[in-house]
Structure formats: structure tokens, C-alpha cells
């Protein structure tokens, strides 16, 4: 029978590759079973709770959190791109001490996000904190800008601004490294040619560096927008009164003891990230095609 031949040949192949399979399986099984468990759990709870996924948009808490997360992502992503680009440009060429500067630029990534958030909280404390002291003009060297101390964590706008700044500070080495790799892949001859033709440094940047850096920039936009959508620690510490989607998930799970609704929001977050990635990838494709034509 052909069937049994197939099975026995399969078995013999399995037997001869027993070692490979035995080596490969443990980590694979561990990661993949968690993947399946997470997916099934999220799907099961999202469609069986008292407020299923499809009706999430009628929940005011969710709408508010979605809106805040959207702004967090929309402002954080370009900001992190610009800061990363600035840092990468500063350490791109070699000069005396560039290695040291590069190492110092890497420090933020070594600081745990929670610690960064807490230090920012201390710096912007109300009513007596270093930043309020500074802005009130209480140190001789800095001009007075405000007359009353600012309650940073009491304002939705200001506390979310602090969260964006904290996230940007902590993650700037990541954007820097990706953009640095992009900058260093541009060949020096191209700059030589531009110089010979009389291009100034701003023109070199605009007509040479930026277009050639487009792939790295698009990578940053995709990675950073994902990272900003799912941010938890900074808004959790700095803007607990104004939850983003991540903070809302924690609140629903721990405070309101509603794992089903928490799972719905968690799945909504996954879907949002997938959609954003899709949009950015298709934009990236269009931009690339446009650049090739030019």
C-alpha cells in the first residue's frame, strides 16, 4: 500500500533526524505553546465577556484611552525620529573622543524604564521640585518664566507630555543606532561628488543624506509607532490619572478585576498595532517606488 510506505519512510526520516528534532523542539515548543495560549485566551475572552470586542467603542474609558494613545504615538514617533537623527549625525564622523561620546549616548538604554520614569517624577514634583524652582526663577542664573508652580501630574496635557519625553529620553539610543547604521552605509564618494559640484552642507543633507536614509527612517517609523502604541511604564508612573491603552489594561485587570474586558482591550491593542504596521509598510513601499522613479 502506498500509504504505509509513505508513513514508514516518514518514520525512518524522523528516526534519522531524531537528534536534530530533539535539539530543536524544546525552545520551539516553549515559545510556540505560549503564543497559542496567549492568542486563544485573548480571542476567547474578547468575544465572551459582557462587553465583547466589537462593542468596545461604546465604552467611554476605552475611547478616551484610545484617543490619548493615538496622540502619544502621533507625537512620540516623529519626535523620536528627529532626536535619533540628531544623535546619529553627531557621532557619525570620527573625531577625537567620538567613542566616548557614543558610549555616553548609549547610557539611557541601560537605565530601567521604571527608574527613568521615577526620576522624571522627582524632577517635576509639585510644588517644590527642581524644575519648578528653575522656572520660578528661584535660582539666580535662570530667568523667571512662571509665577506659580506648575502641577505637572495634575494636568492631562502636561503629564502626557512628560510621559512622551521620558519615553523619548529612554529609547533614543535605539533610534540612534539604526539611523547611524543607515548613515554609515552611504558611501563617501557620493559626498565627494556633491562637494565637487558645489553643494553646500545643507544641500548635501537635503538632496543626498535624507533620500538615501529613507529606508532607515521608514524602519524607525514602523518600530517606534509599535513601541509607542504599546507603551506602559511611562504613562503608568507619570500620568496614572489619564490612562493610555496599556494603563487601561492594567487598571481593568487589577482594580476592576475584569480580566475579560482587559483581554478585549489587549486584543484591540494588538489589532491597532497590526493596522499601523500595515499602513506604514504600504507607505514605505510607495515611497520606495517613488524614489526609484526619481
Amino acid at each position: 500500500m502506498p500509504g504505509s510506505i509513505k508513513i514508514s519512510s516518514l518514520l525512518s526520516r524522523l528516526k534519522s533526524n531524531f537528534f536534530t528534532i530533539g535539539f530543536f523542539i524544546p525552545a520551539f515548543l516553549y515559545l510556540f505553546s505560549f503564543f497559542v495560549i496567549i492568542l486563544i485566551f485573548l480571542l476567547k475572552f474578547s468575544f465572551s465577556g459582557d462587553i465583547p470586542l466589537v462593542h468596545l467603542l461604546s465604552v467611554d474609558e476605552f475611547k478616551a484611552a484610545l484617543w490619548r494613545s493615538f496622540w502619544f504615538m502621533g507625537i512620540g514617533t516623529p519626535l523620536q525620529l528627529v532626536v535619533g537623527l540628531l544623535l546619529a549625525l553627531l557621532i557619525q564622523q570620527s573625531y577625537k573622543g567620538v567613542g566616548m561620546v557614543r558610549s555616553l549616548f548609549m547610557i539611557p538604554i541601560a537605565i530601567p524604564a521604571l527608574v527613568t520614569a521615577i526620576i522624571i517624577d522627582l524632577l517635576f514634583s509639585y510644588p517644590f521640585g527642581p524644575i519648578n524652582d528653575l522656572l520660578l526663577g528661584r535660582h539666580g542664573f535662570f530667568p523667571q518664566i512662571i509665577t506659580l508652580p506648575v502641577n505637572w501630574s495634575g494636568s492631562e496635557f502636561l503629564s502626557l507630555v512628560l510621559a512622551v519625553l521620558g519615553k523619548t529620553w529612554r529609547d533614543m539610543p535605539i533610534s540612534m543606532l539604526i539611523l547611524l547604521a543607515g548613515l554609515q552605509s552611504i558611501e563617501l564618494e557620493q559626498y565627494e561628488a556633491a562637494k565637487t559640484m558645489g553643494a553646500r552642507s545643507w544641500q548635501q543633507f537635503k538632496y543626498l543624506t535624507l533620500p538615501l536614509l529613507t529606508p532607515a527612517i521608514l524602519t524607525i517609523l514602523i518600530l517606534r509607532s509599535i513601541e509607542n502604541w504599546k507603551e506602559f511604564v511611562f504613562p503608568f508612573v507619570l500620568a496614572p490619572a489619564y490612562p493610555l491603552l496599556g494603563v487601561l489594561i492594567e487598571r481593568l485587570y487589577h482594580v476592576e478585576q475584569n480580566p475579560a474586558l482587559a483581554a478585549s482591550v489587549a486584543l484591540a491593542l494588538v489589532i491597532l498595532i497590526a493596522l499601523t504596521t500595515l499602513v506604514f509598510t504600504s507607505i514605505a513601499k510607495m515611497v520606495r517606488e517613488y524614489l526609484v522613479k526619481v
Partner: protein
Amino acid sequence: MKVLKFVLIGVVLFFIIFPLFMMTKYSISDRESIVTGGEYPEPFLPFKPTLEMFGALWSRSDFLKAGLTSLWVGLFAVAFSLLLGAPTAYALARFKIPGVAILLFLLLSVRLFPDISAVIPVAELLLSRPFSLLPPVVLVGLAHTLLALPYTVYIAKGVFESIPKDLEEQAFVLGAAKSRTFFKILTPLALPGLGAAAIYTFFLSWNEFIFAYFLTFQGTETTLPVYLLRILSWSPQKNFISAISLLICIPVIIFTFLVQRYMREGLTAGAVK
């Protein structure tokens, strides 16, 4: 142009160093330097620097317990992800596996979920029986293994690919079994490279907050970052919070510098042939 560049470097360095400087300053501040009552601005250097906060922490059993928990969770995550990850990486580096691209994608697939989304199912699973019978250190270690394992496999794959295949063939000719070759010949050679993966995993676990927070939400045994957050709810003095923060950061900063140098040497070592 050059002047502008160095000014900008100075400004960026200021923004990077300033928060860390303030954290260090607070951690050695005396009472008058932080409790000003609004009568005078907080000084940028403490009036009377003191190490008393570190002394106080050294004698706090809950802080030391959290430190030990962090250490054990990290070591557990390292052991578990190397034990699972190194063989997989070896199989990926050496053997022809059909559909390897799909398998690699599936290995990474669990990281497609945002941590804050994945943590709900993981907490529901690990905090219910039979898993909840395990000590919290093991539970958090298992979660951190989940985060670190894909990277461990990736780093270890590169390590095994850099070891010449001839060594194994010679061992095979001399009659060593595949498993013996792996444990007696390859593993010792791969150890330095696997060390990099281990350090990466350990500090990922040391810094990790979300999974540790959800998995130890109700227990007393918890890691340093979660301990730090719990301390915040008592609204403690700035010097106390800063001293804990500094102690969490110091090992990571030191290792980041060390590993960076090692990485750069690794990059340049094979550059010129």
C-alpha cells in the same frame, strides 16, 4: 559648523547626564537639601552629603530580599533560556531543516504581542493551578525566559555558526556521538559567546517590570523594580527612592560599558585579514 556640532553634543550630553546627576545627588542628600518647605530652592549639590540612605537600605530586610529575588529570577531566566535556546540554536546553525524560515518566524511569533497584552493571559495561566504552586521566583523566571529566549536563540545561532565545522567532523571521524560532540567539544568553545547571551538575558530580567509586576501583584516576594514601585505608594523621601534607583542602575550601567567595549573589539577583530 564645527562649533555648532560641539555645542549640540554638549547640550545632548547635558540632557542625558542631568537626570542621572540629580538621582545621584538626591541619594546622598541630607534632610535640609530635600525638605525645603519652599523657603529656599533645592540646592544642586547637597548641603551635607551623606551615605546614610545606603546604610539604611543595607539594614532593611525587605530591600535585601527584593535584591536577592531579582538575582535569583535573573539566574533562573539565564539558566532556562540557555538550556532551551542553545540546542535549538545549534540545530538551526548546523542542520538543514525544511521550512526553516517559517520555524524562525514561529519562534519569534510570541514577541509580536505587546508585553502589556501578553501579560494578561500569561498571568491568568501561571497564577492558576498547577503553576501557582511554584515559587514566584520560578514563575517570573519562566516569564522572563519567554521574553529572552528568541534573542538567546538568535545570538547563540551566530556563535555556533562562527565555530568551524571541521572540528565536529573530526570528532565524528574519531567516533564521538553527536550529543557528545555538542557537550564536550562545542559547548566549551561556544561559552564566551553564550556568555554574551547570558548577560543580555540577565539584564533584561533585572530591568523588566511588567511581567514581574503582574505575576507578583499579591505576594510579598518580588523583584527590585516592583519593590521600588511599591515603595512609591508610601510617598517616601526623595533620597530614599533615589538611593534604591541608583543601586538598581549601577550594575546595568557598568555592564553596558563593558559589553560595549567587548562588542567593538569583536567587530574590529575580524575586519582586517
